[in-house]
């Protein structure tokens, strides 16, 4: 009984947070509320028995997105928390509200007594053994529905190229630092956190095969470390893309496409890993993906095209 | 069906090839362009002549190309086609000679001759079309290839006329498309068959009547039937060879030919008469004849007067077709050729006058006969032909039209013919009088020299042609003889008074 109560409370809290995020005119409140909303989502995923998704949400949804939003918030509002923008909202707010209310009622009416069939779940669990990895989510992600992930990596690279296209080579990078980069506290924090993040990332990468974890979560954690280094000005973003940076960006997609096309050489189908080496190949792909994802996400956060060690 | 003989396709493709080659020749290469144009015209005339002889000996030339399932491009050299295509390819050759001379000091000649050949290719397509869809395709292409010719001068006035021309013709195209689809919807086929293929569908008579007027309205725009003729007099702003070829041969004739095809090969004249639509068409044509002649009286600009005379003359064809009787058909069909030959002579002469003496108004034409004796004699031949004086071709048409209307029991047509002949005389004779019997004003340039050879030869040729077709009407291979052949095939019971 308490479990359903807890779920009900969680769901209610989620909806309230969502409502507050959308409605509040003070932007800083909105961003902070959204971060809390993200963290609560992590709890939801855990409650719904989806550890992989919880990990990903924590690293990417609550972590990186929050950092991006705060960075954008500072840029757009000149960093004063009491900023109230003078932009008036669309005049037809109330009809829109009615429309969305109607949509909600419609969705509730249709989806009230849902009894989704479960045979797909059973088939996946039955055939996980053939996929070369124990963790069913990684099996689906990299083997059964590997084509989705292949395109998704392309989407990530596209987003990075998009950020490069918007910022242009000589865009003013590096936000106005408010904290003093040389203070001992920052130094200690960086020296402690970054190696730990690297450790967690490699654990997640290795554990992905048989326990919750995997390339995306590992990559996101590493990206978190990268963001920290950038904020602490240990990594300077550059305007022009050095070949090493470009290589890092493309290595994930390259390796994945190469591994996917490898069976074609023997007349097999795309993404059909040859029997013996499935586990090794998947790990290779995941390693390359992690590197690429980490590099891309950090670059996206900083808006630059490459990094150079040391302070400005 | 005989195998796909490539002759009809060749007749259409030759001008397209010459046109596209001329497009990509740069402006300076005048000599090569002229040679190319002339050889293209000659070759196409040759092909048409070969087909003419073949069809005369009951040989069939057909070319089918499947566009989609149940829809094909079908070129067929049948009797009608062999009447119209020699006319257009022959006159094209003559007009090319004329245009080469005329366009000497014009700009964009490359573009002009390119579209000029494309225009003739589409006219050949219209002539040889074997089904209503192919006819519609080339009919629309005719609009597209003539538009650049009409606006060739590039000044504001010709562009305004061009837009008006487009508005009329693209609108007509839309109307035609609706009619075409309706027929295809009802019957599933649009093939031209001698004696028409709509007879068995008589139960949809109301929609068939609407279809008839949609089609005739669509073709009527180009055939300049009264309310739809607005663009023709305005299009006189185009250079002379354009107005000569377009308004004497290609565009106007395509409209008239369309009406002929609709009445004979789609509806079948007896079925159309049964529907009662031919009566309405006859009245419509008669009104146009009278209206055109009346308006021509009032025009002082020579080319506008000729334009209005074209408006009325083309309706003779519609009138002949509308009177449902073999003899009237004969008159209507043969006028297709006669009017073309005669009117093109008049336009050539008007072009010469404008080119050499810069005369555009009739009031300025006093004593021009002394200055340009040969051109003016051709002009006189043409004018007499138009009025319908006996030895000329025009007379034969009016003769058969009158005979046909009597035989079909519609005497009022005679009145219309008489009235229009009087009106023709009323607007041509004063011009002739002014040309030959008035002393030339002293302002004309004293050393009057004849138009250059290129400009002089074509009117003379076509003038003589108009005279000869009148005199030797009964000889084989003349338009009259050919029309008799057509009428025999068109009327199954085939009784026909001797020519």
């Amino acid at each position, binding site marked *: 009984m308490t479990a*359903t109560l807890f*779920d*009900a409370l969680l*769901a209610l809290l*989620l*909806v309230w947070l*969502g409502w507050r*995020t*959308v*409605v509040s005119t003070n932007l800083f409140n909105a961003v902070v509320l*959204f971060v809390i*909303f993200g963290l609560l989502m992590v709890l*939801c995923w855990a409650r*719904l*028995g*989806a550890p992989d*998704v919880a990990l*990903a*949400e924590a690293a*990417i949804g609550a972590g990186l*997105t929050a950092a*991006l*939003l705060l960075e*954008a918030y500072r*840029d*757009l509002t000149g960093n004063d928390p009491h900023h109230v*923008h003078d932009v*008036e909202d*669309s005049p037809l707010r109330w009809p*829109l509200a009615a429309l*969305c209310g109607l*949509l909600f009622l419609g969705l509730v009416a249709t*989806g009230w*007594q*849902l*009894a*989704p069939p*479960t045979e*797909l*779940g059973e088939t996946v*669990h039955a055939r996980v053994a053939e996929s070369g990895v124990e963790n069913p*989510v990684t099996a*689906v*992600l990299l083997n059964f*529905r590997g084509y*989705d992930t292949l395109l*998704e990596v392309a*989407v990530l690279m596209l*987003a990075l190229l*998009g*950020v490069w296209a*918007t*910022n242009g080579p000589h*865009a*003013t990078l590096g936000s106005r630092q408010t904290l003093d980069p040389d203070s001992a506290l920052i130094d200690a924090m960086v020296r402690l956190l970054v190696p730990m993040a690297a450790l967690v990332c490699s654990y997640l990468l290795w554990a992905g095969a048989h326990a919750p974890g*995997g390339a*995306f979560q590992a990559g996101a954690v590493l990206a978190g470390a990268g963001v920290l280094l950038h904020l602490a000005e240990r990594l300077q973003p550059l305007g022009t893309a050095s070949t090493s940076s470009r290589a890092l960006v493309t290595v994930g997609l390259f390796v994945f496409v190469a591994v996917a096309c490898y069976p074609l050489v023997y007349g097999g189908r795309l993404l059909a890993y040859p029997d013996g080496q499935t586990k090794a190949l998947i790990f290779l792909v995941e390693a390359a993906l992690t590197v690429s994802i980490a590099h891309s*996400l950090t670059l*996206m956060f900083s*808006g630059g095209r490459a990094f150079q060690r040391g302070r400005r | 069906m005989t195998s796909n003989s490539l002759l009809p396709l060749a007749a259409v493709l030759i001008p397209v090839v010459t046109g596209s080659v001329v497009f990509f020749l740069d402006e300076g290469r005048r000599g090569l362009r002229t040679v190319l144009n002339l050889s293209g015209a000659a070759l196409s005339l040759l092909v048409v002549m070969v087909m003419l002889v073949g069809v005369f000996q009951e040989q069939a030339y057909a070319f089918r190309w499947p566009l989609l399932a149940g829809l094909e491009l079908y070129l067929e050299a049948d009797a009608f086609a062999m009447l119209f295509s020699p006319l257009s390819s022959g006159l094209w050759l003559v007009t090319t000679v004329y245009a080469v001379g005329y366009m000497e000091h014009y700009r964009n000649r490359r573009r002009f001759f390119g579209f000029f050949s494309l225009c003739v290719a589409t006219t050949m397509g219209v002539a040889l079309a074997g089904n209503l869809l192919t006819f519609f395709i080339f009919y629309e292409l005719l609009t597209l290839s003539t538009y650049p010719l009409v606006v060739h001068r590039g000044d504001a006035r010709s562009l305004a006329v061009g837009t008006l021309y487009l508005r009329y013709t693209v609108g007509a195209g839309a109307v035609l498309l609706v009619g075409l689809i309706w027929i295809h919807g009802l019957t599933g086929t649009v093939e031209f068959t001698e004696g028409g293929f709509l007879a068995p569908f008589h139960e949809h008579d109301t929609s068939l009547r609407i279809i008839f007027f949609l089609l005739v309205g669509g073709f009527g725009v180009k055939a300049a039937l009264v309310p739809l003729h607005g663009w023709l007099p305005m299009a006189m702003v185009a250079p002379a060879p354009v107005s000569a070829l377009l308004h004497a041969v290609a565009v106007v004739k395509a409209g008239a030919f369309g009406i002929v095809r609709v009445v004979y090969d789609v509806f079948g004249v007896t079925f159309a008469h049964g529907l009662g639509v031919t009566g309405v068409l006859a009245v419509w044509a008669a009104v146009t004849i009278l209206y055109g002649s009346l308006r021509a009286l009032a025009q002082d600009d020579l080319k506008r007067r000729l334009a209005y005379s074209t408006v009325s003359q083309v309706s003779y064809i519609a009138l002949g077709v509308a009177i449902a009787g073999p003899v009237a058909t004969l008159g209507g069909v043969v006028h297709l050729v006669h009017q073309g030959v005669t009117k093109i002579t008049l336009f050539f002469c008007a072009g010469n006058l404008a080119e050499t003496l810069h005369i555009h108004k009739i009031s300025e034409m006093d004593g021009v006969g002394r200055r340009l004796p040969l051109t003016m004699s051709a002009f006189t031949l043409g004018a007499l032909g138009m009025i319908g004086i006996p030895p000329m071709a025009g007379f034969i048409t009016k003769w058969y039209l009158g005979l046909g209307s009597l035989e079909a029991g519609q005497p009022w047509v005679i009145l219309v013919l008489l009235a229009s002949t009087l009106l023709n005389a009323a607007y041509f004779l004063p011009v002739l009088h002014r040309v030959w019997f008035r002393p030339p004003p002293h302002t004309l340039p004293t050393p009057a020299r004849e138009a250059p050879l290129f400009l002089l030869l074509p009117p003379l040729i076509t003038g003589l042609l108009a005279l000869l077709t009148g005199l030797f009407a009964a000889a084989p291979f003349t338009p009259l003889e050919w029309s008799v052949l057509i009428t025999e095939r068109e009327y199954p019971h085939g009784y026909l008074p001797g020519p």
Partner: protein
Amino acid sequence: MSQLTLYGLAAAALFALGLYGLLAYAHLLRKILAVNVMGNAVFLFLVALGRTDPQQTNPVPHAMVLTGIVITVSATAFALALARRLHREVGAVDLDAQSRRGEALDSTQTEESGKS
């Protein structure tokens, strides 16, 4: 009230809220926030679907949501970069109002004082 209906209701509510936020508010940052809320709503619904019986959850929705999260973060990062560039170029934080101010800029060519 099974978990599915509970979270399904929450997802539907959040989706409607997000849609309202995206359409009603002009400020770009709020629009992007709303898009993220909508995204999370759909993912919540998907994972809830996979949760039919506690022992065996269907991993396919999980994989779909993982892919969705990565796509949403990429799109958000790109959208934020665009919004920041627009702010840097024209000092605008929304699409429509700025066009009026933008025209004012072009027509009067006055140097608009920095917004922040």
